[in-house]
């Protein structure tokens, strides 16, 4: 259906496209694939579950100091007071940790959902939230496949909380707080290309240690956070989601809008004119 529609659109909608989404049609495909975003490679094989990054994150972002973790194996999620958590899992290779936070998708569902562009994919890579634009509709939360944006339900001036890869630090040339401070070097900060190369290298050098999979390389159309792990990512609670980009799911619909906007009124007007003639005599009778 969407393919048909797009073909249909190609023929008819070239002018229509300019009407409603012209600017974006040019801008959007301009290759989020080509920009070499910055990101972080997280290595589960190195993480010892010290939770230090949770404290660093809270500190860097003015969030409350995290509660000490009593039991690693109780799975926690991020929330309006914590942008990242490290959870432990009992896996086929013993206890393995995983840090979760916003994945900073290459083509973020949240940003394409946002009607005010408050959620924004920066050229550097981080997906940031801009409070002065946000109207709190929470459509970003509905759309994010990783359920990462969190909302302050108990505030009259609520914010969306999620990891922004320490965008302010990045602007001054620093690395994100978590990546700077990890004592076990489980977090490797760099451009996406560097991350992929580094991940490949680690897998090749140590094939026994790693599962041969880089989570985030293709998930959701590619993400800036990527995961290496000793076990299948599903054992660590990561979702098995589609490889294609999420905004692409609405493209078919959005692309059909301009053509409907051009064709339907013309069509309706046509019927209106046609029926007018037929009915003229009746109408005259009535009035």
């Amino acid at each position, binding site marked *: 259906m969407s393919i048909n529609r797009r073909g249909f659109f190609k023929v008819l909608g070239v002018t229509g496209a300019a009407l409603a989404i012209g600017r974006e049609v040019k801008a959007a495909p301009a290759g989020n694939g080509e920009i070499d975003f910055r990101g972080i490679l997280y290595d589960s094989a190195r993480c010892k579950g010290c939770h230090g990054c949770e404290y660093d994150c809270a500190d860097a972002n003015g969030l409350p100091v995290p509660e000490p973790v009593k039991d690693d194996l109780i799975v926690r999620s991020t929330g309006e007071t914590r942008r990242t958590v490290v959870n432990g899992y009992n896996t086929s290779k013993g206890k393995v940790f995983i840090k979760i936070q916003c994945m900073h998708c290459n083509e973020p569902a949240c940003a394409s959902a946002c*009607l005010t562009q408050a959620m924004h994919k920066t050229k550097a890579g981080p997906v940031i939230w801009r409070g002065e634009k946000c109207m709190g509709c929470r459509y970003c939360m509905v759309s994010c496949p990783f359920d990462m944006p969190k909302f302050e339900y108990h505030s009259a001036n609520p914010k969306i909380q999620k990891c922004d890869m320490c965008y302010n630090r990045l602007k001054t040339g620093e690395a994100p707080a978590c990546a700077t401070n990890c004592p076990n070097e489980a977090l490797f900060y760099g451009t996406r290309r560097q991350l992929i190369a580094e991940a490949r290298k680690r897998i090749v050098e140590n094939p026994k240690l790693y599962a041969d999979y880089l989570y985030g390389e293709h998930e959701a159309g590619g993400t800036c956070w990527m995961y290496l792990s000793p076990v299948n990512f599903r054992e660590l609670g990561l979702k098995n989601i589609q490889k294609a980009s999420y905004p692409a799911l609405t493209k078919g619909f*959005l692309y059909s809008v301009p053509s409907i906007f051009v064709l339907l009124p013309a069509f309706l007007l046509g019927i209106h004119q046609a029926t007018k003639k037929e009915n003229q005599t009746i109408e005259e009778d009535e009035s």
Partner: protein
Amino acid sequence: MNQTKSKIFTPFNIISVPVILVGLVLIVIRFWKGIGAVTNLTQEIPWGLWIGFDVVTGVAFAGGAYVVTFMVYILKMKQYQSIVRVTVLNGFLAYVFYAGALLLDLGRPWNVINPIIGNNFGVNSVLFLVAWHFLLYMIAQLIEFSPAIAEWLGARKIHKVLSGMTVAAVIFGITLSTLHQSGLGALYLMAKEKIHPLWYNEFIPVMFFVSSIFAGLSMVIFEGSITHRVFASQISSKDHHAQNPIVMGLSKICAGTMFAYFFLQVLVFIHEKHWGLLNTPMGYWYLLEMIGFVLLPMALFFYSYRRNNILLIRTAAILTMLGIILNRLNVTVIGFRWDATAHYIPSWMEVVVTLTVIFTEIWIFRWVINRMPVLRSSPEWAKH
């Protein structure tokens, strides 16, 4: 008018006034303490009753306006002329109140003008499209309805200008409706893994559009059966007699579009190969919706049309409406993160606020009906 004023203690008033008062208090609390103070929404389920019922379902029921204006102004089916105004009024108020309920759900409503004044156009966003269409469609409906206001005020010159704009507004309105009725479904396209597979498919927009036709018409049938009783004194005997054939005609259209809708649902079901899911609790729920609230009312519409049975048609209309509520809630609330550990069940406060919205709308509806020529026929001067 005096008559209506004298009856203050009607059952409707006795129920609606306290509910509205409590609702207003809750709305104050909501803006003062945050959305979490009155709703049960969670981080996983950020949209609940206010979006899933008030906005998504309410707008589907308001679909009658674009269908009826299409029939009367575009296809020139003159026999439906007498229900145009009341349907458009209903549609307009539904948009103002149900789409307006969206404002209650916004965490930072003071920024709502951002996407309107154009400093931040999220043109890739389906919600952006839907919000704009709501706004424009309200204007189109106001234009469609405005001759009634002019007649009430006795503004003859303006009446002529406004009447001249009707067809343009209708064409514009139908286009907008087609797009935002389907757009409401398209909102959920990105929630691919979050909606139960029996309700998620890439055709949600088409389903929402097609079902909005019979949802809207069932609402017209239902609303007509009530207004013709409550406001009987205003309706001319000619219009009153015309009502049954109108209901008959509408039921035929309902049956036809429901057949198309059911067919589509079956096609999608077969295409997605969901046989295994049928024998699960969600599967039974799905079957109940499809058989009990689509197939059954469709058959009833067909049957009662043939049998000329108005009462049965009304039953079918009510069943259809229940089915629409069920369907919209299944996509937006019940089937949304059906696998989440913490389920969302609306709080009593969310329900009261929803009722407040509905009751206030009915109050305004009654206020307008009692003053403007909506059910009543237009003054003589306006007919030429």
